[in-house]
């Protein structure tokens, strides 16, 4: 077969171009290393930052749901709009709810469920009267669910068999002018719409650092509350704690399917705690603004490195075109170099990001040195120890972003390579 008569196949030429690009990446090791460094460090930074942010957000959510109504709140229809005992789950509805939580699709995700009665009322002492939220809780279940028992500063948490014991916040104690062992009166509307009073005694005092909780919430035994408010066996809420906030959507979908919609309302923590949801979203948005700025800087660094390389290699690209490559194919050489560097950097960046995060902060990054006192927001506490959370989706998203940026940053230099004036490029005095 004569060489002059042979016709190149497109696939074959692409193979040659691919091989040429790979050799260029390896041959210009210093340039490749410098370009790749920007991507590797950028991706590692992105992964470190995202895993810590995801971990912090998960921590906020954990704290928020454990101080509030769990990842999922199951309530009587209408209770979210009108928090009165008119909208309660009676004994039968409660049994239906608890049975739904044993569904095989739901049960593995559920850590525990806490039935509660929550009513608005008034706490009165000889010196003052303050509006509060009265929570009737099961003393056997609640300590494992809520964080409040961990915040004990004096006395003890509720125990099984307690009748008139109350667990109150330090802010309320101070405002009512009472102390451990003091008696005070709770007033609230019962299930029949009548105002009822109940004398209780301070058994324990907690301090969360969250003013809304310390001044505005009381835990009573569920049985006492049901009896006092003429709602035997009834609850207003079943708070459900899940393994992770990420399992909330599928659990909600299943519960909405299995529970009667005309009796029970299924709320996620996002709906039950909109302030917490907003706080997580706003913080996430801020993080992404920072990430985008960082990625833009990385993109410019890559663009600059590759463009400079193209300008310095005009003669080389001129030779390729003189030998028979088209301008477009010359551009593909540059683009493929960018793609290869991006893929290589992506792999290394993931390893570096995960490695550094795991090595340095797997037990948590303690930021407490930046804080003089406890930080609170949206009804929850800010944990100064940020424990990274490694999510596959986040890692893939970060990887995809950096590779996309690498490829996009190669497009302009590749276009420049297609436009080289071959005769100019071959001039010896250049």
């Amino acid at each position, binding site marked *: 077969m004569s060489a002059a008569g042979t016709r190149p196949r497109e696939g074959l030429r692409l193979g040659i171009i691919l091989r040429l690009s790979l050799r260029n990446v390896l041959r210009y090791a210093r340039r490749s290393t410098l370009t790749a460094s920007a991507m590797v460090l950028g991706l590692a930074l992105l992964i470190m930052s995202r895993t810590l942010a995801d971990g912090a957000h998960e921590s906020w959510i954990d704290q928020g749901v454990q101080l509030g109504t769990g990842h999922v709140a199951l309530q009587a229809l209408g209770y979210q709009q009108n928090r009165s005992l008119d909208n309660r789950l009676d004994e039968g509805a409660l049994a239906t709810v608890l049975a739904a939580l044993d569904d095989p699709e739901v049960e593995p995700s559920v850590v525990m469920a806490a039935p509660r009665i929550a009513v608005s009322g008034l706490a009165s002492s000889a010196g003052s009267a303050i509006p509060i939220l009265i929570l009737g809780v099961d003393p056997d279940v609640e300590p494992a669910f809520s964080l409040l028992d961990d915040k004990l500063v004096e006395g003890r948490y509720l125990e099984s068999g307690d009748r008139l014991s109350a667990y109150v916040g330090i802010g309320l104690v101070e405002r009512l002018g009472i102390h451990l062992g003091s008696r005070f009166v709770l007033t609230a509307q019962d299930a029949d719409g009548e105002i009822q009073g109940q004398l209780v005694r301070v058994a324990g005092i907690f301090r969360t650092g969250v003013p809304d909780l310390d001044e505005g919430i009381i835990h009573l035994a569920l049985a006492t509350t049901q009896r006092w408010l003429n709602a035997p066996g009834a609850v207003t809420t079943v708070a459900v704690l899940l393994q992770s906030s990420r399992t909330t959507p599928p659990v909600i979908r299943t519960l909405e399917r299995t529970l009667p919609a005309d009796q029970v309302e299924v709320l996620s923590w996002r709906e039950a705690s909109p302030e917490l949801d907003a706080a997580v979203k706003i913080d996430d948005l801020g993080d992404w603004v920072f990430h985008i700025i960082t990625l833009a800087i990385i993109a410019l660094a890559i663009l600059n490195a590759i463009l400079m390389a193209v300008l310095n290699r005009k003669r080389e690209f001129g*030779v390729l*075109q*003189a030998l028979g490559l088209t301008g477009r194919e010359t551009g593909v050489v540059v683009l493929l170099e960018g793609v290869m560097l991006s893929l290589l950097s992506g792999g290394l960046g993931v390893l570096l990001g995960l490695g550094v995060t795991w090595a340095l902060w797997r037990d948590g990054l303690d930021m407490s040195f930046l804080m003089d006192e406890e930080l609170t927001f949206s009804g929850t506490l800010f944990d100064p120890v940020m424990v990274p959370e490694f999510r596959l989706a986040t890692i893939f998203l970060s990887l995809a972003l950096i590779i996309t940026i690498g490829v996009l940053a190669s497009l302009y230099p590749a276009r420049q390579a297609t436009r080289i004036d071959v005769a100019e490029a071959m001039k010896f005095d250049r």
Partner: protein
Amino acid sequence: MSEPRLQPTTDHQVQTGGHAVRTIDLWKTYPQEPEPVHAVRGVSLEIARGEFLAMAGPSGSGKTTLLNMLGGLTRPTRGEIWIADRELAQLSDKALARLRLESIGFVFQAYNLLPVLTALENAEFSLLLRGVPKEERRRKVEELFVKIGMDGMENRRPGRLSGGQQQRVAVARAVVGEPALVLADEPTANLDSHASDDLLEVMEGLNRDLGITFVFATHDPRVMERAHRLIRLVDGAIVSDERR
């Protein structure tokens, strides 16, 4: 050592009526203030297949521009260039690239080997682009390397070759595909006299043995002495055309 198997072809001789290249009233004008610059002025030229031709002239006489136009690297402002029965102005960029690949070989002053490839890979590059099977590529290049005195250096990268050796590889790259035409722009300018003589010897041998057409743009008296035809250019126009 086996006999070289590269043989002159006659395909394009049929297509071009015996001419490797033909130009008709070729002009290249660069727009410039206050007046446009005419780098090439009305050059009409016929180069027969198998010629060993040098174009000489002072700097700025237009010889490199003319060479670039013959190679399809620069498009003329006016006039026609015929190579392998095709008029270059009618060809798209892609077709022009194909023509360069199949019908034209280049030798540059600065060698311009691809630094990431070995001597053998550089020499076989145009065959690679043309889809020639590996065994055939290797056989052709190895035969050629024996002919130009580069055997044993196939696996060296350009950085490990002398200037003369690099230019020999460049010549091998230009002729391995048996092109209709090899264009050499000051191929000896960076070489010492000994290396220049050796290189010219190699090219003369290829011209003589394989019938490959060489067109040089040169200042080098050695090239002019060896050329079978010497065209002198001044201010972009042919002022003499001497056959020997």
